[in-house]
């Protein structure tokens, strides 16, 4: 067994995910099987391999010149707040932080 119920609980806490008891056990079993499968990567010797952290190089994505540092109007606040769950313009209202 690669992943325990405690592991899943700890991770769910990190990810702010409420999971039911049933979900906890189902995901634990499924993720365990997946991690078992993923273990096959250990068959490969990657000691001298650079991780591929970027797909494209800088010169494939860099603009020839930098843009001017100009302030442009950005009047999105109204649009954005219009669709918020609990807006109090110009704020998003949220419950207070109780724990920690």
């Amino acid at each position, binding site marked *: 067994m690669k*992943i325990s119920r405690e*592991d*899943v609980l*700890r*991770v*769910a806490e*990190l*990810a*702010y*995910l*409420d*999971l039911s008891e049933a*979900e906890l056990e*189902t*995901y634990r079993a*499924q*993720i365990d*099987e*997946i*991690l078992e*499968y*993923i273990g*096959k*990567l*250990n*068959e*490969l010797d*990657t000691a001298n*391999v*650079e*991780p*591929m*952290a*970027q*797909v*494209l190089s800088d010169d*494939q*994505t*860099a*603009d*020839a010149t930098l*843009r001017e540092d100009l302030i442009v109007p950005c009047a*999105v606040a109204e*649009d*954005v707040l*219009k*669709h*918020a*769950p*609990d807006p109090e313009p110009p704020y*998003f209202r*949220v*419950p*207070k*932080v*109780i*724990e*920690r």
Partner: protein
Amino acid sequence: MATNWTIDGVKEALGAKKVSARELAAEFYARIEARNPELNAYLTLSPERARRQTDKIDALVAGGKPLPALAGVPVAIKDVISTRGIKTTCGSKILQNYVPPYDATAVERLEAAGAVILGKTNCDEFAMGSSNENSAYGPVKNPLALDRVPGGSSGGSAAVVAAGLAVASLGTDTGGSIRQPGSFCGVPAMMGSYGRVSRYGLIAFASSLDRIGPFATNVSDVAAILQVIAGRDPQDSTSTTAVVPDYRAELGKPVKGLRLGIPKEYFGEGMDAGVRKKIEAGMEVFKKLGCQLVEIRMPHTDYAIAAYYIIATAEASSNLARYDGVRYGLRVDDDSLLAMYRKTRGAGFGAEVKRRIVLGTYVLSAGYYDAYYLKGQKVRALIAQDFQDAFTKVDAILTPTSPVPPFKLGERTDDPLQMYLADIYTVTGSLAGVPGISVPCGKIDGKLPVGLQIFGAAFGEARVLQLAHAFEGAGGTAV
């Protein structure tokens, strides 16, 4: 029998005033009304926006003005792509009432080219899935076989084109989500290289893998859509500055003498016999076209799924952290902020999304980062190298798109790993960043579509399209 509209057909009909843009959109909305309840391919329709666009196009026609490249062409947009003023759910409950305040660059470009946006298509939740069975809004049915899946995650985008409910559509591909549904629904479907099309406005799943790309009824139309949406966007720093060639001009170039790699690793066990037969018939078509088939080795192929499901889930766990009920989407209230986060996310995300967030968080967590995420990135480099090595020997790589034909609804939903393994031929190209197309390659027993995948070198979309176009012209799609 309804007309099978193509981009050229629309242009010709509008120019000759045989139909107006308004009438054409109305025709498509009538078709959608008739067929969508059964297919569940569209989630949201946008008739007002479509009307504003058709009015513009019809005014240009009336004034004898030149028409833009996609004037009047009815298109559909996958629901993970932002459309200003049109609900965008990502197939999830957590965004059930989210209305973006802006358009994705790809959408903006389509509209600037005259395309008419009919609506938003159904997809697996947050683009996570290979069958469109992970949508919070119900599965999509394959128009060619209603008891079967259309593929995923862009199942809706594939289905609408296959069913004549749009002339073209946009989907997204992270591990195969454009190519595989294209294959399952019998339509050509392409992802350009990573960075070829701007991701601005694409609601992120895995930022180093996500790509936007077209579905259409023929390769020339796929090229036309890609032409419009491709190109540098200052709002996406990962979009490439490489020039966009004239894809349609490149299409007719002869393919005789081109070397096509057949990677041994893609033709082992696990491939359905019916799929194999069609792919072999497809390879014969390329031989007749004068291409040279060369056996090649891509030794890290078998490790691609493992690497993909580490990297993609890790990136997803980070990208989906923003859904917390504060600024948009669903909120499940509580007295405490952190409890609100947990309850909102617990209620709003479906099982596959939760599973991937848990896995992704795990592989990034302290103590496991090196063993999993870093290892995955190293293996990714090896897979990318396999492609680079191959392209020193061949001009393109041929593989099946999927090891199996479209499976039945519910057939793979109990076993996530089984579902993941269906992606074995597509995730390799996703990891390497190369472009790939799935072009139809016959139907098993005349019923179940098979797709042939063509990979090209990075930014070699023109070559991929040339080959697909020649294949189509030589009858390859009906082997």
